[in-house]
């Protein structure tokens, strides 16, 4: 097995809860609580989970936008958290993040062409006189036109802005792109365009994606492997086909049973989860999912299930599976 492009081991991110006049830390929000994953080159790894499960925090902690609490992130064999600020700055262009909200992720006072080209300039990755051409090229491959170069972000629609965000990441020729719910702020027809753009770019440039989403049908369309998160922990990881055909974790089953299908007459077993996701500052003991799991037994309340291989690279954290 070749070395993984990205390897995350037992990553934890706790946000302190501070209260009172003296800002005493009274607890921690366990946004990410011991996540492990590895992504091979050229692969698309989908990370799914409901709101508040810590998906975005995983992405931001991997890319060192927020600092980890514990664990290890290895990118191309390099420990990202062992780098000095200068070394980190050097490696930044090879891993890029695409933001969820295309409206707030572009500076309203920077022209689009400058926003896309400035990182090349700042890192000295291309001579100054070539940058304009490179930007025009990347604009074109993202489905934008050359006359967009001198425009400001407010002159674009949401879908176009997301293309600008993609172009900004793409011009650096990154090895890894972390896409943090890149389509959830867009309407459905635009979603399709952007997803197809992701696809096309992967085919032509051999990109590797960590695709964070809460939309299972998007993930099914795009990803080769999928991880399911719940309350900061990984519940199940498997290849796409395996996960959709043979989900082992009850949470995954519940999620899959909630995906709308375009056949109204088809009756299927719906697993409806009751209640809300528990407070991540005070997660349930044992299996974190036991409070909402329809199959929970006594053991689930006491013992944390091990994230184990259920055969053929299908990992699951459940006592019953």
């Amino acid at each position, binding site marked *: 097995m070749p070395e993984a492009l990205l390897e995350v081991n037992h990553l934890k991110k706790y946000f302190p809860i501070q209260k009172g006049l003296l800002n005493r830390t009274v607890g921690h929000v366990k946004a990410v609580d011991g996540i492990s994953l590895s992504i091979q080159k050229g692969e698309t790894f989908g990370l799914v989970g409901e709101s508040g499960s810590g998906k975005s925090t995983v992405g931001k902690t991997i890319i060192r936008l927020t600092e980890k609490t514990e664990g290890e992130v290895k990118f191309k064999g390099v420990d990202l958290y062992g780098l000095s600020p200068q070394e980190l700055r050097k490696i930044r262009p090879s891993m890029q993040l695409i933001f969820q909200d295309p409206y707030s*992720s*572009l*500076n*309203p006072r920077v022209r689009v062409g400058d926003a896309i080209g400035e990182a090349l300039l*700042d890192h000295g990755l291309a001579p100054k006189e070539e940058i304009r051409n490179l930007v025009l090229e990347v604009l074109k491959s993202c489905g934008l036109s050359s*006359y967009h170069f*001198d425009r400001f972000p407010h002159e674009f629609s949401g879908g176009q802005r997301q293309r600008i965000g993609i172009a900004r990441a793409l011009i*650096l020729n990154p090895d890894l792109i972390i896409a943090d719910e890149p389509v959830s702020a867009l309407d459905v027809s635009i979603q399709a365009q952007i997803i197809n753009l992701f696809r096309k770019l992967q085919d032509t440039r051999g990109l590797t994606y960590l695709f964070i989403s809460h939309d299972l049908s998007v993930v099914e369309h795009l990803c080769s492997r999928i991880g399911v998160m719940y309350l900061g922990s990984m519940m199940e990881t498997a290849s796409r086909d395996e996960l959709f055909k043979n989900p082992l974790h009850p949470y995954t089953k519940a999620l899959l049973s909630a995906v709308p299908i375009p056949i109204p007459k088809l009756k299927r077993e719906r697993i409806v989860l009751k209640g809300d996701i528990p407070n991540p500052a005070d997660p349930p003991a044992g299996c974190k999912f036991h409070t909402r799991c329809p199959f929970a037994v006594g053991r689930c309340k006491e013992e944390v299930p091990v994230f184990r291989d259920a055969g053929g690279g299908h990992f699951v954290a459940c006592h019953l599976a």
Partner: protein
Amino acid sequence: MSLNSTPLPGTIGSKITGPKSSSLFGQSMRRLLKNKLAISGLVVVIIMFLACFVGPFFSPYTDNKINMAMMNKAPSLKHWLGTDAMGRDVLTRVLQAGRISLTVGLASMVLSVFIGALLGAIAGYYRGIVDQVIMRIADLLLTIPGLPLLFIFGALLSDWKIPTEYRMYIVMFMLGFVNWPGLARMVRGQMLSLREREFMQAAVVLGLRDRRKLFNHLLPNIVPLLIVIATLNIGGSILSESVLSFFGLGVMPPTPTWGNMIDAANNLIDFQEHPWLWIPPGFSIFATVIAINIFGDGLRDVLDPKQKR
């Protein structure tokens, strides 16, 4: 009849040339032009500037010769605003004083905006100990009321026998120095909120240098605020300078400023008998400051809509 075969009007043309791009700033300026009140304020300010900086060239009395025969003469065709106690033409003096007053106002504004924006930006961007040091100094200055502080400085200057021709420049520095803390605070607040915005996170991910983040991403976003503060600041500076000069602690005669010309109103006889000595400079201050404030308000409405009164 099909919808997708008819292109939207303008799309074809725009594909060839592309419609004209407009920055947020350009849009704001266009909106400002529609604000009649603000524009009339601007017009008054421009007239004031032109009159003060160009006007004296057309006056035959610029040499300020003392002419005892022409003491305290009422306005006439020869001297439109009369003459003062030394027989000098009041209109010419008012215009020359305007030069000084406006220059002092502008220069001290530039100085305070420069210091305030720079220190505020640094404090807000780097936070931590740098922020603490800068902001505590600013707080310290803010706890001392500005005018008494200026009085003390002014008195010290008189005590040290600074030559009167340099006092004008020192007054500029004094006013700039007194005004920067409030400005630094505002800029710092803006910085603190801007640096948490998602486009700044994007800048981190891109691995941009601090310098680029500060000057290409953060500062352009506070420029509108700075323009507004700077404009309103000029009016305030002109007022402070007048107050100081009125009390004889700012710019000293014979260099005329509006403030030290109003000093004539201190004298009961001049106040009652020779109103042409103090009404013109008083009116100039009034008109200029009001016009600047109206214009500044209009600017704020278009550039910084969140900060409405």
